[in-house]
């Protein structure tokens, strides 16, 4: 048998070829890891930070806030029957489709999900939050509550607190601006009074930054 001398070149070639064979044979790891631990998600669930009150959303709509992105989680036919101003349709079952990744993977706009109630929107929030996306919110009460609170606000009784009266004023104004319920006198002052009771909107959280690289 010939003398097989293990020069560095032969050694490195053998090692690299073997590793190369392994990496060529093994399928790629395509699972997107969950970015938040179970505890973190539970904390967020408990604190309910993902909810946005209808008043907050209404205010942003009235002010035409560019940072608001409403997302309708219901089936497409329901979306076409009625949807909130500026909402896009992303049915719950299609959430993981790559065409929506751009909408989720950014740190500029607030993505507010709504359904008829809150269940489906919460499902979307859970899923997307675990994938690490930020700026995901849920419209408290969904469209059912929206109709009740904003489109047709019930006037509080005379014994209500100032807060409640202010809230009712705001809702009336918003309702008028957003084309809801009772025919109040139209006019800009309605919209103005709606924005008087400022409810602070959540700020978009910073996203993981993309690196610059190469030699620039």
């Amino acid at each position, binding site marked *: 048998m010939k*003398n097989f*001398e293990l*020069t*560095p*070149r032969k*050694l*490195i070639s053998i090692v690299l070829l073997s590793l190369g064979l392994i990496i060529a044979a093994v399928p790629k790891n395509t699972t997107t890891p969950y970015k938040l631990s179970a505890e973190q998600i539970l904390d967020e669930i408990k604190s309910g930070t993902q909810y946005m009150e209808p008043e907050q959303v209404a205010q942003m709509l009235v002010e035409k806030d560019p940072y608001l992105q409403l997302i309708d989680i219901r089936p497409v036919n329901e979306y076409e029957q009625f949807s909130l101003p500026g909402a896009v349709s992303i049915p719950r079952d299609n959430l993981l489709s790559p065409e929506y990744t751009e909408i989720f993977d950014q740190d500029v706009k607030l993505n507010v999900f709504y359904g008829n109630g809150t269940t489906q929107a919460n499902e979307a929030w859970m899923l997307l939050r675990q994938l690490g996306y930020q700026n995901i919110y849920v419209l408290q009460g969904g469209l059912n509550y929206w109709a009740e609170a904003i489109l047709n606000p019930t006037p509080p009784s005379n014994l209500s607190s100032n807060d409640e009266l202010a809230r009712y004023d705001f809702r009336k104004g918003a309702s008028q601006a957003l084309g809801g319920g009772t025919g109040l006198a139209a006019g800009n002052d309605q919209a103005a009074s709606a924005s008087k009771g400022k409810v602070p909107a959540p700020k978009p959280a910073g996203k993981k930054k993309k*690196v*610059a*690289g*190469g*030699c*620039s």
Partner: protein
Amino acid sequence: MSVSKKSKYMNPYLAGVLLGLVVIAANFISGRSVGASGAIKSAVVAGVETVAPAHAESAKFYKEFSEGHEGSPLNSWLVYQMLGVLVGGFVSGVISQRLTWKVEHNPKIKSRTRLIFALTGGILFGIGSQFGRGCTSGSALSGMAVLSLGGFISMMAIFGTAFALAWFFRKLWI
């Protein structure tokens, strides 16, 4: 012949593996790989901004740079990395006793010739690295590591051209 010749340098394959590990570490820590020419670019921009700020504000190249980078141009990953390269190279030189002031050149040419070509080569590399958005480290090596198409093309162009022109400049080296 089975005796490997004694070398004052590290075995190239071992060095290659270590180099690969450095690149892996850079990607793991910083999400980007090593480079070199970008640090020169940062330094040039910083220099022009200091010496002729008005020009730096109006000329397109410097404007585009400052739009893409906030803060001082010198406060960049690559600049710190290149400072490290100086230190690392120096330490290695000390350990292997290779510290020396000299103009390294083929004895068949004059040292002045070597320096002229070093300067010319540097100028060409400076220009080329801007077009190529990287040099052999930043574009070719790092690009290959992440399987970048641009990196691969860069590498082929650099080595291909150098091979093609080798005969014309052989007097410099052999």
